[in-house]
Every structure is written in C-alpha cells, then in structure tokens.
C-alpha cells in the first residue's frame, strides 16, 4: 500500500482534469508547465516528451508528420516562410532535410521523419507556412 499525501492527491486530480480535457478536445498531446508541477500526456502511438527534449536552434526537433495512405505528409513544426523544398523524386534518409523555413534571418531545416522519396510538394516556395501546414508528401 502506497501512502498518498495531499500533494500527490492534488497532482493526481490535476492529471485527471488534464486527461479529461485532452479526451474532450481531440488533441493528441497535452503539455503543461506550472508551479505545482509539469504534466505531459500523449495519445497512442506517443510522441517526444517536450519536457525532456533538449533545446535546439537550427533543426526542428519534432517535425509534424501524418501517415497518408502509403505516404506521409511532413508538416511545418512552427510558422516560417518556405525557402526551399527537396526536389520531387529525391531520396532522403531519416533525418535528412525535406524543406527549409526562414524565420526572420534564420534558416531552419525540416528533417524527414523516415527514409523515403519526395512524392509531391504540398506547399510552395515563398509561402508563409503556419504551424502544421503540409510541406511535402513523402513515399516510403
């Protein structure tokens, strides 16, 4: 039997409330940092816990990608202007750049989530890509 004190009880209540909110909203992940503690919840199949992820400057750590039939759509991990897209038919290794975004004077390579071939461009160069905007379609 584990002794549960008030703090633990509060932490459990918080986690339950967050879980309810996540399930009601349809979000895939919830990450909250606060004075009482940090929480990270994710749906199957899970994702990188940003509370544990190291800060990076020049390479996006977690490009958003969603399976789309046998292909995968790579999405913008944050807002930025599309500066370059890998050529259609070009093969990329896992972690290889599939697109490049500029944010003010900084350029950021968007890495591929897996090895594959660029099947199509979904965005255009010079577009303002918002968070989660599809950039390229990757066939594996």
């Amino acid at each position, binding site marked *: 039997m584990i002794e549960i004190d008030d703090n633990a009880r*509060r932490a459990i209540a918080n986690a339950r409330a*967050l879980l309810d*909110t996540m399930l009601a909203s349809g979000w895939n992940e919830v990450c*909250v940092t606060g004075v009482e503690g940090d929480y990270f919840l994710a749906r199957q199949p899970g994702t990188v816990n940003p509370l544990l992820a190291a800060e990076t400057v020049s390479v996006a750590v977690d490009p958003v990608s969603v399976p789309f039939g046998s292909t995968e759509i790579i999405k913008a991990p*944050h*807002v930025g202007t599309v500066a370059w897209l890998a050529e259609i038919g070009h093969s990329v290794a896992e972690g290889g750049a599939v697109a490049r975004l500029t944010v003010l004077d900084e350029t950021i390579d968007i890495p591929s989530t897996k090895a594959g071939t660029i099947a199509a461009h979904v965005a255009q160069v010079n577009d303002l890509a918002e*968070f*989660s905007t599809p950039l390229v379609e990757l066939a594996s």
Partner: protein
Amino acid sequence: MAIKRLFIANRGEIALRIVRAAQALNMETVLAVSDADRDSAAARLVDRTVVLGPAQAARSYLDPRLVVHAAKASGCDGLHPGYGFLSERAILPRLCAANGIAFVGPEPDVIESLGDKIQARGMARAAGVPLVPGCDGVATAADARREGDKIGYPVLLKAAAGGGGRGMVIAHNGDEAEAGFHRASAEAVAAFGDGTLFMERFVPEARHVEVQLMGDGKGQVVHFGERDCSVQRRYQKLIEEAPCTAMPDHLRKQLHESACALAASVNYRNAGTCEFLFDVKRQEFYFIEVNARIQVEHPVSEMISGFDLVQEQLRIAGGAGLSVTQDQVSLTGHAIECRINAEDPARDFLPSPGRITRWSPPQGEGIRLDSHMSEGAMIPPFYDSMIGKLIVHAPTRDAAIDRLDAALADFRVEGIATTIGLHREIIAHPDFRANRIHTRWLEQVLLAERKGAAA
C-alpha cells in the same frame, strides 16, 4: 504614420479587447494564435490569423522570433503585445524596429531599465519619487539600533549580499533591532560569507495603489487617476478599484505628480503603470515598480475617465501625440473590477479547465464584461485561468459594491468551477465595505475565516 494593419501577439480577453479597439480605428487585424486557440473569439473577429506553433506557450506566444516573423510576413506595420507573454521583453520592440514594425509600447531601453529593480529605484530617486525608507551597510548592532530609531519600527533586517528570505528578521523596537542584528548577521555570514545587513521599514498592512499613465515619448505625460488593487492572493490581484477612496486628496495629488515625474524623466512612451505601496497608518506612499504595458485592470480607469486607453495606445504607436491634456481628463464615480478565474476556491484554487456548458453574464447600466468566453467554449489548460473581468461603475463606492453584488448574483457559469462565489463573499465582508483591507487581508482574514468555518 498611423498603423494600417495591426498584429496582435496575445490571446484571451485582451486579444479581443485590442482587436475591437483596432477595428474601431479602421485598422486591419492579424491575430497570432497557438494550435489550441485557432477557434478563439478573437480569431473569429480578425481579418486573418497566423498559427505560430503548438499549444505550448514557449513554442508559440513566447517565441519573439516567430511572433515578429509572422507579423512581418503577414504585412503588418504595427504590433500590440497585450500583457504577460512577451509584453515586457525588450527583444520584442527591438525585433519590431529591425523589421519596420511599430511596437505598441515603450522604447526597448526604457523597458529594460525599468525592468531592473535597482535601476528603476535609482530612476525613481532621481525623479524625487519616495522610496521605502531604509539604509544599506549596517555593520554593527549599535548601527542597527540607531538606524532603526531613525527609520521607524517595525523594520526588516536582511542580508545585503543575498535574497530568498535567508537571514531576514523583523524588529519592532531598538532591543529587537540589536538582537535581530546578531541573528541576521550570523545567518548572513553562514549563508553568504558577509554579515553586512540592509534595513528598511516594514509595512505589515499596506495597500497596493497604482497610477495609470500615458506618455507621448517626448516628455509629455498624462495620468488617468489611481487604482487600488489591495485584494490579492499570493501577489495576484483579484479585485481592483478606482479611485483609492482610502487615500486623502492631498496625498493623491502627490501620488499622481510622483508617477508623472518619473515617467516624464525617461520620456516614457505609450501606456504604463507606476505601482506604489500605501502605508495607511503613516499616510505615506513608496515606489514599487513601473509596469511598462497595458494592465489587466485598465478598465476601471477607463470607466471613471470615459477614455479608451487601448485606442490611445494604438494612436500613439502610429506617431500621434497625446489626444488629451491633463485638464481634459475628468474622473467621475467609482469603478470595481473582479477577475473571474476558472479555479476552484474550495480546492485550494485548483485550475478548472474544460468546456463551459452555460454562460449567462449579467447586463445592465454601469456593467461591463471583458471576456472571450461563451457557451460551449473550451478553456485550454495551457494558459492562465482568467476567463473574464466583470467591471461595474456607479456614482459612489457603496453604490458600486451594490451593483457588483447584483451583477455577480446574475452571472451564471456552468461546466467549470469559477471564483464568482468567492468574489461575492469578499465584497459582502464588513471589512471590504468599510474599506479596511490591505494586501494580506484576503489570505490572513477572509480565507482564514473560511478555513476556520470549514474545520
């Protein structure tokens, strides 16, 4: 040149407030949103939204490069930071200036120097603004007694070398000052290797009073009266009023003059608030800090002055001068604001995110609600828990309390826990009606009584 297209780098009720002010001035509006705020009330009102990043604020609202890039790429020539988030980070106006965007706020150097407590105190001293009486470099017990007698008891003795409450002692008379010196100095030596102490007057029951300012950046400053924000929990304001009826007129005049002198001395531009501690017993006020932004509680000043502060912010950022002189600012009646939070006071103010199943706000003469909520709205758990501000205006403080009580009674929210009930308890308390409150009153008196009643 007047701003044509404004970027709003904030969320919640203040984003909505800024959008409405910009639209009243015929500006186009672009709103920064996180993934969790795509469908917010402000998002539905603007010409365009730009999704910066995921719900997590550090990767959306708190990233100055993403914010300024989105503003520039969407063709905006002005940026309003609201309050909180990046509003007092000098990097935001610096990036705006480098990218040809007018920042709605003070110069970055002014934000930086006012944000530094030591520099800000120096600026206040130079402008003749009263500081909490105190002295540096107390080296012996005899010094402590002599300085304590001079400052007036009670006094606080603390380590000159460190912070964090270590080596801190409160002394109520000369004997305690001497004994306190030995104790605090020994603790300071143990903790920091330096026994030198710093002494200042301790004000156990202070009120928090602040002056609303607007400057043109060229030395002209007008004020819109003071606010009393003494109902606080853990340094968070819950209720704000204007004016501070506990302050006599001659002191009020000095308070306004002090705040304006400080702002004018740094050629302050745009909206700002000068905060003071008001020692009611001694009838003195002391400088705390300047908040270089529009504040949550600005509506109470708008209600008593009939002046739209956010529209004035936008005009000044567009290069206009102040649209009113001090003589044209006339303050009438009394206004009170309650911050309504999605928190459960019965469970130690635990945040209560979720979906609002019923939202039926009060309406009527002298009632204003600044809120981004509606029936069916979702309160995401990522940000602060404020869901709205209920503001009332009436000819007198008593009439304003009555109006507020009726408005709170009419305010029905279901689906989440809120602080509406607590606000009714606060304003029904005899101490609140008699205006016998101070910054620790809520925790020491009302919440303590509540706890006692529950036990």
